[in-house]
Each structure stands twice: as C-alpha cells, then as structure tokens.
C-alpha cells in the first residue's frame, strides 16, 4: 500500500526533475546511545569505497543516552566535505524529533522513517518512505538483546536500495567495522539484507537522489583529527603525556594511548618509550608537562576551553621561565561549560594572551586532519626550539568528525630538540665558545638561550635554578629593574624569531580576484566551497588560511594586496579579526571585513557566500 501512495506523492511533489547524482547529504536522526554509530559509519564507508568523496559529521548532545543525535553524511563528486545546510535524504529513527526533523529538509527530499511515526501528513512536497522497522527487526533478528542495535542496520539496507549503494561495499564496510567479530557481522548483515530486500519488494523510488561509482577516493583514508593528531604525537616521539578527560579532547589522548601501545614499545626491552598519566585535573596536567619538559622529555597535554582557563597560571610560568610544552586545545563552544559537544573557534584570542602579565604564545592552527598530524610534530619541534608552551588549536568539528585525506607522509625532517646541552662535553664546548654557560643569555641574537637538563652532567656549571620570579641571565633571583626589562625584551625578541619560524599561511588564488578571504582551521572546507560558488556567481576571490600565530609577514602582505579581505571567524567576537587589527597598518585594517559564525554547528559555505555578497552588495 504504502508504496502506491508514495508513488503518487512522488508525482505530486512534482520533482521528476533531473537526477541528483553523488552530490547531496544524508541526515540520520536517532537517539544518543542507540548504537546507530556503526550503521552510519558503514553507510559512509560504503559510499567512500564506491570512490565518491564523502564526509561524516556527528551532531551529538552532552549526554550518554537518550537525547537526540544527528549524523550527516555528505557525498560530493566535487570533493566538498564541509557541512551543507540542505538535506537531500533524511532517515527518521527518533520519535522525539521526527516532526521537527521533517520540517528541516528541502522540498523534494527523500524521507525514510519508521512507519508508526505517521509523518506522511506533515508535508506534501517530499518523498516519504515509511518502513516498519520495529516489525522487521523482530523477523530479522532473533536474539532480543541485539535488536536495539540491529534495527539501525535495517535502515542501512533500505538506504542502500534507495540510493544505489553497492551491497558489496556495504559488506566490506561491515566487516571492517566489526573486524574479527564473525557473529556480529553475520547478524548485522542479515538485518541490512533484510532491509534491502524489504525495500526492493515494497518501495518505489520517486526521489532524484542517486549514488554511482566514481574514482575520486582511491588510496585515500578516513580519519578524525584527534586520531590524526595522536598519530603525529606518536611519530614526534612524545615521551610524557599528562591529560584530564574533557570532551572533545579525550579521544586525542585515548587514541594516543592505543597508538603508543602498538608502536611505541621498545622491541629490545619490551618496555614503553612513553609515559601517559591521567592527571587529577588540568592544573596538574600542565604542571606535569612543565616538570617533564624541564627535565628533558617531549611532553604534552590535550584539553578544551575550561582546561585552558585552568592552565592559565602554569602557562605564564612556562612563558616566563621558558619551559617547552605542547598543549592541544580541541575547542568547543564556550564560555564556561557552554555547549560541550558543539564546535567553535572560541579560544583563539584568550589563548594567544593566556596568563596575567605580558605574555603571548605560539599557536598552531591545523586546517585538516593531515595538518593535525603534521602540526602535532611541528609543535614539539617549536616547543623545544623556543622553550615555551606551544598551543595546537584544533576544534570539535576537525577533531571528532570523519574526514577524507591522502595517506599521511612519513616524516623526513629529524627532530629539532632546540638549544639543549645534553652532556658535559657539550657544556664544555659551549663554555669554550661563549666564555660561560648562562641559562637565560641570548648568545646569538635570536632571543633563545641555551639550557641544560637536570641530572645530565656533573659539571657544577651545568646546574641552574628555574623560577617564575624575576631572574638574571644566570637564572639567579633578581628584582633589578634592568634585569626584568632585559628578560622581557629578550622574550619579545624570541617571539619575533618565532614569527619567522612558524608555518606560513596557505594562499589560494583565482585570476582577477580583488577580494580575499582570510580564515583558519576547520573553516577551510566551507571557505573553499564558498570560493567555488562565488566564482560561479562571477565573483572570483583569493583565500589565505592562517596556520599559525604570531602572524608571518605573508599575512600582512595578503591583506595589503586586496581591496577587501573577509576574515572568517567561528566565534561571536571576531577573535582573529581582532588579532589582525593589532598588527596591521591602519590602511590595511580599513580593508578588513568580519564574517562570524557562532551557533555551534560547523561552518557551511552558504554562510561565507552570504557574508561576502553582503559586503560586496551584490
């Protein structure tokens, strides 16, 4: 019956328009903790394996079970993987939100839903596909305990039939998902196949959405930014990790634990070449990292906004006493607890200036999972080179969502351990060259002093005293005005050296562009798509993605060379826009416009397009 009705609707809805192939997004609405995650992954991977560029975003609540969750899979033959506002295919599994969910889709969308939800009446401009999921699961899954999860597999089958996802790829994805668990594969496959067959028998396709094999993902990987960053840390030879759980950063530490357990065990001794400690809070976490960095380890922590606030005092110590440390800030929506499971670039400004007193810090801002991997390594080199805390500013969208990427390159560059005198020999050589060892003396003009490590040399000259209070270049206590000034001026000089050492911004150009878009981090996906759309609409634009602070010269040049530059911030106050105003000449400040997105959802291309068009009064 259903099918007939549907066909009519399909006709009525008058959307016998052109097919939409490999360019729409699938929105799955479920309840948190209902185990839909594996189903969604399987859908996403199967599409990916069909060679279609894809991305998966999980919009989840700060709750463990019961509250609504949405998973969006975007397929894009052009390879755009940012969030997309309009929804092509909706799968309604959550009674709580079904009514609302249906309202959100575009006219002509396909809506798969649990029959009993009776959504048909709600709209007449979409394609409804009622499915008796709860009945089907009883037939398809015999073990009652498994049904709650298996029901989600049924919609995989239905979607596969409706959209033309190849069952072969679904099977591959399935067995990858449940690697080794034969039984699980078997049961879930039955459910998927059951859904597929039921759909084939009972549904008539009336919507325009279809997926077909192409060849744009060969050799690519899918990974989330936190796993990528963890991989980078493992490759960077991190030796001491202290962390305190907090969403969305926990998975970075937890992936790191498993990568290290697999790849950081000394083959000879069978012992770990790392120590990972769950601290009692973030003050302790950074404190441990400071102690370890001081003693010569490559040490790090990972946290999010509230943790950054708690790390403020220790960060000032690291800046002033010059101690290497790597801190990952996987940004979420603040201030305070805010929206712990939503994304934002809200800590850029406060982290750049973190600590009371005069202090500025090196920030690395990855714009892709690949950069999460690369900048993790870069961060340790910079922290040891500049003997200061370095922050890697990722965010929830980048860190916890699934992104396509080329396989990561094996690092060719050797570690940069910075100016460390590791042995009595090195210390003697240093003294021979510079007359003496003075912990905080700038012997070569770059603002960076040499350091020794506790316990590495028995030369009396090797020892020095570290303190957060005023000190001479010999690290002795001092309240002399000139000593303080000299130290602060050298730290400023060191920061200028860093300006030349941090990753340069990434520039993309379009012939004839007069306007530029300046952005950073996870905004890149939406911005590049926006540039594509803008060009189509006859407005070519260049883009510059800031990848680190302090701003390298290229940033200022980019602004100077465009009529108008739209600064894209995922926060309310235009934090990057503000930081630019602090460094640009007044003339160049006049070129800036600010586009701000701050509702907790990842940035989408439309927002950028609208911002630019508004500014250009198109």
């Amino acid at each position, binding site marked *: 019956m259903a099918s007939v009705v549907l066909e009519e609707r399909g006709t009525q809805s008058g959307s016998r328009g052109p097919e939409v192939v490999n360019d729409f997004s699938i929105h799955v609405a479920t309840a948190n903790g209902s185990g839909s995650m594996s189903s969604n992954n399987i859908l996403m991977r199967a599409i990916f394996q069909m060679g279609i560029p894809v991305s998966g975003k999980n919009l989840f609540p700060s709750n463990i079970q019961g509250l609504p969750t949405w998973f969006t899979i975007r397929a894009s033959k052009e390879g755009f993987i940012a969030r997309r506002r309009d929804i092509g295919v909706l799968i309604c599994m959550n009674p709580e939100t079904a009514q609302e969910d249906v309202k959100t889709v575009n006219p002509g969308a396909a809506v798969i839903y649990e029959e009993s939800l009776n959504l048909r009446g709600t709209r007449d401009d979409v394609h409804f596909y009622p499915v008796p999921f709860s009945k089907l699961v009883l037939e398809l899954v015999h073990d009652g305990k498994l049904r709650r999860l298996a029901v989600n597999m049924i919609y995989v089958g239905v979607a596969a039939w409706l959209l033309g996802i190849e069952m072969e790829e679904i099977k591959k994805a399935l067995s990858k998902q449940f690697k080794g668990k034969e039984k699980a594969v078997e049961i879930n496959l039955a459910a998927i196949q059951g859904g597929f067959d039921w759909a084939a028998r009972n549904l008539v396709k009336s919507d325009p959405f279809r997926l077909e094999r192409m060849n744009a993902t060969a050799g690519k990987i899918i990974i989330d930014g936190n796993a990528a960053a963890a991989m980078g840390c493992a490759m960077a030879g991190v030796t001491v990790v202290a962390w305190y759980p907090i969403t969305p950063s926990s998975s970075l530490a937890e992936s790191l634990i498993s990568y290290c357990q*697999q790849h950081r065990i000394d083959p000879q001794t069978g012992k770990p070449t790392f120590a990972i400690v769950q601290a*009692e809070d973030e003050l302790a976490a950074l404190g441990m990292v400071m*102690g370890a960095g001081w003693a010569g380890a490559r040490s790090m922590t990972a946290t999010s906004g509230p943790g950054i606030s708690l790390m403020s*005092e*220790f960060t000032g*110590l690291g800046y002033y006493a010059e101690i290497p440390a790597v801190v990952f800030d996987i940004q979420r929506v603040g201030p305070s607890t805010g929206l712990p499971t939503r994304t934002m670039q809200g800590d850029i400004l406060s982290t750049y200036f973190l600590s009371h007193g005069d202090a500025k810090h090196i920030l690395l801002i990855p714009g892709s999972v690949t950069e999460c991997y690369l900048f993790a390594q870069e961060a340790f080199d910079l922290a040891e080179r500049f003997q200061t805390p370095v922050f890697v500013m990722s965010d929830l969208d980048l860190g916890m969502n699934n992104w396509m990427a080329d396989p990561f390159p094996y690092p060719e560059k050797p570690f940069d351990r910075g100016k460390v005198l590791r042995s009595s020999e090195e210390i003697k050589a240093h003294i021979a060259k510079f007359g003496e060892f003075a912990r905080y003396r700038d012997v070569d003009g770059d603002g960076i002093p040499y350091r020794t490590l506790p316990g590495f040399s028995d030369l009396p000259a090797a020892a020095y005293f570290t303190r957060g209070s005023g000190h001479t270049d010999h690290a002795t206590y001092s309240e002399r005005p000139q000593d303080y000034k000299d130290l602060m001026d050298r730290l400023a000089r060191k920061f200028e050296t860093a300006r030349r050492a941090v990753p340069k911004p990434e520039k993309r150009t379009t012939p004839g562009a007069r306007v530029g878009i300046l952005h950073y981090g996870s905004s890149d996906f939406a911005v590049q798509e926006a540039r594509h759309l803008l060009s189509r609409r006859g407005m070519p634009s260049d883009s510059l993605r800031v990848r680190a602070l302090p701003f390298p010269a290229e940033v200022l040049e980019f602004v100077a060379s465009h009529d108008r530059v739209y600064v894209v911030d995922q926060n309310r106050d235009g934090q990057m826009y503000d930081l630019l105003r602090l460094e640009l000449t007044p003339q160049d400040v006049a070129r800036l416009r600010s586009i701000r997105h701050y509702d907790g959802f990842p940035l989408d291309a439309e927002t950028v397009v609208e911002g630019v068009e508004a500014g250009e009064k198109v």
Partner: protein
Amino acid sequence: MSSVADPKAPPVNRVGLSVKEYGGLKSTLCTGCGHDVITRQITQAFYEMGVAPHKVAKMSGIGCSSKTTAYFVDRGHGFNAVHGRMPAVATGAMLANHGLVTIGVSGDGDTASIGAGQFVHMLRRNIPMIYVIENNGVYGLTKGQFSATADLGTRLKTGVVSDLPPIDLCAMAIELGCGYVARSFSGDMKQLVALLKGAIAHRGTALLDVISPCVTFNNHEGSMKSYKWAKEHEIPIQEIGFVPYFEEIHVDYDPGTTQEVELHDGSKIRLKKLREDYDATNKGGALALLLEAEQKQEFLTGLIYVEPSKKDFLSLLSLPDVPLASLTEKETRPPREALDKMMEELR
C-alpha cells in the same frame, strides 16, 4: 665515616665530596627562621648519604619555605614553581627522568591550603620523592595569616584566634597510603637528619611534616608553633638511628625495645621505642596514635609510619631503565612500517 687523606683537606663522603659541595646560596630568610635549620639538616643528610649532587632535583612551590631549595645543593637543579602546585611539576620531572633524587620543599600554606588537592594525588600515586613541609602554621611570605595547619586556639600577634581544626598532614598521608610518614621539629636536628636520611633511602613518597617556627610572625606567647611551645611540648616517640647500606657495622639491639626496618636501598632505620611498644609499621596503630595526639593536643615526633615495600608510581608504569628524557629520535620515532600499518587500517 669519611676517609681523610690530606689532614688539611676537609673530610669527604663516600663519593669524595666535602659537605661544602652540598651547600647553596646564602639564605635570605629572617635570622632565626626555622626553615634555615631544616636547610642545614638537608645539606647534611645529602652529604652523609653521598648522593651525587647533580642528580638532585629540588622542587618547591611559593613561600619562604619554598625559597629554601636555593640554599642547599646548588650543584643540583632547582625548580621554584607556582604556589601549591609543585607536586605535579615534580611528578612530571620524575616521569621524564626517574634517575633523579627528588626533594620537594613546601610550606603549610603551599601544601595544606592551596595545595591540598595535588598533595592528595601525589600521595595516592606514591611519587618517589622526599616531601618536606616546613610547617609554621602561618603564611610567612605574605606576613603571617593563618594556614590550614594552624592549631585550634592558637593566637596571632594581632590577637586573632584560630577556630578551625588544623589539618593533620601526617594522618592524611597515612590515610592515603604513604609509606614513610614522619613528624619532626626544626629544633630537633639529630632526629631530623636521621629521618631525612631514611627518606633518601626510601623509594616512594617520604613525607616529613617538620614544625618550623616563623620567628617573625608566629613565635610569640600564645602561638602553638613557637620554638618555646614546641621545645616544651615535643614528645619523641622514638630515638632514631640510621644505618646506611654502605656501612658495615653490626650493633646488636634489643628487638623488644628497638624496631629495625630495612628500607628500599638496604639501609636500616632503628627505632628505639620511647612510647610503650609502639609499632611504626602498623597503619591502624599509627592513625590511632595521631588521633590520640590530636585529642590531647600532644606534639609527637618521630617516624610515625613506615611501609617500605609499597610500589611507587614509576614502577607501576614499568618505565625503561634509560630515563625517557634520554631517549632520542632513534628510539622514539616509529618506523615507516608502523605508519604504513596505521594508514592501512584507515583505508
């Protein structure tokens, strides 16, 4: 006992260093400050134990007490961290280099007030370090406000009386599983140096809560942390002897009146009981003793609890023998194959 070659040369310890080589900068504390006395005992203990000075890590927070790490063993590295958070920094240093001999010096404010949280977790983890609290019941460096160890009823010069119960850091430590817990008094140098040597010999957190009068702000009549009060009220529960592992002397002792405990490095600490058969290895007894002392407002000193066999945090992590800080790219960057494997799993 150091062998003296050249009669004019100063005596040296087993690693051939004189006590001078365990010294530090001149103290900038008030003349007579209890903390300076402790500094001298620490210097002496490291000298007598023949600890390699360059292996010593001196950790502290903020306070007059925390300043003292600059006044001993200046051939070791010192780290004057932030107020109340030194345990975390020390933990990190030990993770990076477990070969360090770490001593943390803190104050009652630094430990019991702002530092209570980190103190608790340092003890729970049993971080291998000596942790000395120079306890004067006040915040010396900020001019004498009460700390959380101020005794009930004690009075400041201003007349203010402490009406909250003091935190007993020894009881807390025992409760949290610390394996070496002592209370002493900076006026009792003989006991203090013995306890410090025992602390060096112990593996795990060794806690010394040392009453150390603040002559400027808390040494007056009516203070219960003054030299006078402490001298008059100190009741040592043992007479403490220490036999380092590197000295082969056999003195017989009467097990009835003396308890001998072998510490991690093989040294032995001998506790001649002054309190009828008190057993320093009995946790329940130790807690009971402190409770009784609190109720009677008795000032007991000595090795209150010792349990040398408890595993420290680093051994739980089964770290390699080479300190993590010494590992290089060679040992810590996974091979190309490892990356390939990770990539494979993500395809």
